[in-house]
């Protein structure tokens, strides 16, 4: 018996709306007009908020935060495929998708202003807390999907993570477990080409990230992540597969972070302006606007009107968030550790209370 081929695999690439706004009519999904406009609104809001947060951060009114500039399409495109009762497990750059899902802007602001309140929203959103530990959320998504599977309900869980996250053991264990149990979960890798300064080619020697699915026995696909339609179509397929009990899918969305990793980062240290410009030409918003205009759904004046409206909303949200921040009680940090405050921790809370109250006077004495 000679050496024999045993198994063979293939990973596809999907693009529907190209960089110049040309659509592949054969593949174009039919989405309601209201949805097309809502997509535009959410992407525009994410971009405008990103800019505003940058200013707030420079004014010291907000902590360092990760920009989503350039990546507004990928997460949103995928989330379009979910039902409202499906679960969404975000990473930290899917602002546009969260808005589509109904998350109040104030939450995003509070989160980056350093308050746990930023993660407190309606349970009906079925959106999990924003994770900081890279890759960790992939496992929680699999657990949530298993809960749905065990209960016999048909909700699907979609989880987002970056190219960097695929290097973590957690990602591996999540994919492997999802494969073994055929969990109804969709893994969406937002490959923005960098993990802070480390380029995609140093993150893994694999030709694509989507092919990592082969290791777990489920399908993977690469899509143009700046193309809302391709993301939606790939996600739709994956969600349906999951809902039918046919197990997980890995979708790799190719995109680019046009801004810095966070406001503390200087991308010029690790990438060329030329590279950035190449990707700027593939801007998902520009492309989407052409698409809407070609379909007669959008005009310059509508755009101006929308931006005015959104800026006003942002102003209002910032005011609310800063009000909440100013009125946050520091001692509440004790109140959500356990369902009930254990006696010794209650004593520590009292101890802290003394000092929070005293701080002014005593620190005045320290300054004497």
């Amino acid at each position, binding site marked *: 018996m000679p050496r024999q081929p045993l198994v063979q695999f293939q990973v596809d690439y999907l693009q529907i709306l190209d960089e110049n706004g040309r659509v592949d009519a054969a593949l174009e999904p039919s989405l309601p007009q209201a949805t097309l406009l809502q997509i535009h609104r959410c992407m525009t809001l994410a971009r405008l908020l990103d800019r505003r947060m940058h200013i707030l951060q420079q004014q010291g009114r907000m902590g360092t935060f990760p920009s989503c500039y350039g990546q507004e399409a990928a997460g949103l495109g995928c989330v379009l495929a979910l039902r409202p009762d499906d*679960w969404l497990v975000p990473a930290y750059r899917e602002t546009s998708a969260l808005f589509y899902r109904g998350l109040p802007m104030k939450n995003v602001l509070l989160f980056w202003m350093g308050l*746990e*309140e930023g*993660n*407190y*929203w309606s*349970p009906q959103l079925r959106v*999990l*807390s924003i*994770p900081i*530990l890279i890759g*960790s959320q*992939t*496992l*929680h*998504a*699999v*657990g*949530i*999907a*298993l*809960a*749905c599977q*065990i209960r016999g309900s048909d909700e699907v869980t979609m989880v987002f993570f970056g190219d960097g996250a695929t290097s973590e*053991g*957690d990602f591996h*264990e*999540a994919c*492997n*477990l999802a494969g*073994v*149990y055929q969990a109804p979960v969709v893994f969406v890798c937002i490959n923005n080409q960098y993990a802070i300064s480390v380029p995609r080619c140093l993150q893994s020697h694999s030709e694509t990230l989507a092919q990592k699915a082969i290791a777990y026995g489920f399908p993977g696909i690469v899509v143009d992540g700046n193309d809302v339609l391709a993301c939606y179509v790939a996600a739709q397929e994956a969600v349906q597969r999951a809902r039918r009990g046919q197990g997980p899918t890995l979708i790799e969305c190719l995109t680019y972070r046009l801004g810095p990793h966070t406001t503390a980062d200087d991308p010029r240290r690790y990438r060329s302006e030329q590279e950035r410009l190449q990707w700027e030409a593939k801007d998902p918003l520009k492309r989407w606007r052409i698409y809407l205009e070609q379909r007669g759904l959008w005009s310059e004046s509508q755009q101006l009107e929308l931006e005015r409206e959104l800026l006003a909303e942002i102003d209002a949200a910032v005011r609310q968030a800063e009000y909440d921040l100013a009125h946050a009680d520091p001692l509440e*940090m004790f109140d*959500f*550790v*356990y*369902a009930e405050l*254990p*006696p*010794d*921790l209650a004593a520590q809370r009292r101890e802290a209370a003394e000092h929070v109250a005293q701080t002014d006077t005593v620190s005045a004495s320290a300054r004497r």
Partner: protein
Amino acid sequence: MALRNMVQALNWALRQEMARDERVVVFGEDVARQGGVFRVTEGLLEQFGSKRVFDTPVSEAGIIGISTGLALAGMRPVCEIQFSGFMFNAFHQLGLMAARYRSRSRGLYSVPMVVRAPWGGGVRALELHNESEEAVYAQMPGVKVVIPSRPRRARALLVASIRDPDPVVFLEPKRVYRSLREEVPDEEEVFPIGKAEIVRSGRNLTLITYGAFLQECLQAAELAERDFGVTIEVIDLLTIVPMDTRTIVESVKKTGRCVIVHEAPRSCGIAAEIIARINEQCLLYLHAPIARVTGYDIPYPFFAREHAYLPTIPRILDAIRRTLEF
């Protein structure tokens, strides 16, 4: 009432809770078909089916991670880590993620899960099958840690842990899995998390321990009472985090002397924390330094040397004597 060893008592708790609450699911390496390498989950697969009792790949971070997800979505996962040392592979998932969902989401999300694990040494097991990592959890606020010592409380505490709204690490002293039997009632019994138990009362010295070493402590107390003409109060912590400081402090106020026994390495162990609390709350009642009889600050040795590592009755007796004679 039936006489049960700890394995049987725990199995009984799992059966009853699974029957009572269909949100309870049990999983881990070899827990389903094999019934667990120590047989704690034996028969559950047969009784509750493969949706609620399932085997996992060798994937500890995965086990804790999906358990977290299951709990976030409203289930009541009771997962098993095959030996508690392998919890190290999942400390990030437990200590940074599961333990903090409630606080990071300001109560929107919570993680009512139980992580069971055979724990501790003394059974001639391989390297890394003997760890006592309980003190580490004290530095992971948001989790609770329970360590039973005998079958009856083990059962009642496991029930409480499953019903607890927060993540509980439930460590089972494998050395006493089958070494003793107790009356364990068939009917539901719950013992509250956070309560220590005075298992022997006395006036001259407080002997504090938890887990397998309760047996040695009780024997040492008896020997000491006879040899030194004193009475010894023995406290079984049962819950390690959050600790029942009050029971400890009241006892030490009465006895003025204290010896603490555990298998874990000494530095920054549970005994250190108990000493710190006694120092803070009743220093002036102390007639002698508090003695620690613990594992040493070395890796748990391969089993041919474990007898020299673990506390022994003579070591405990010696500490009692020195504390009394101080």
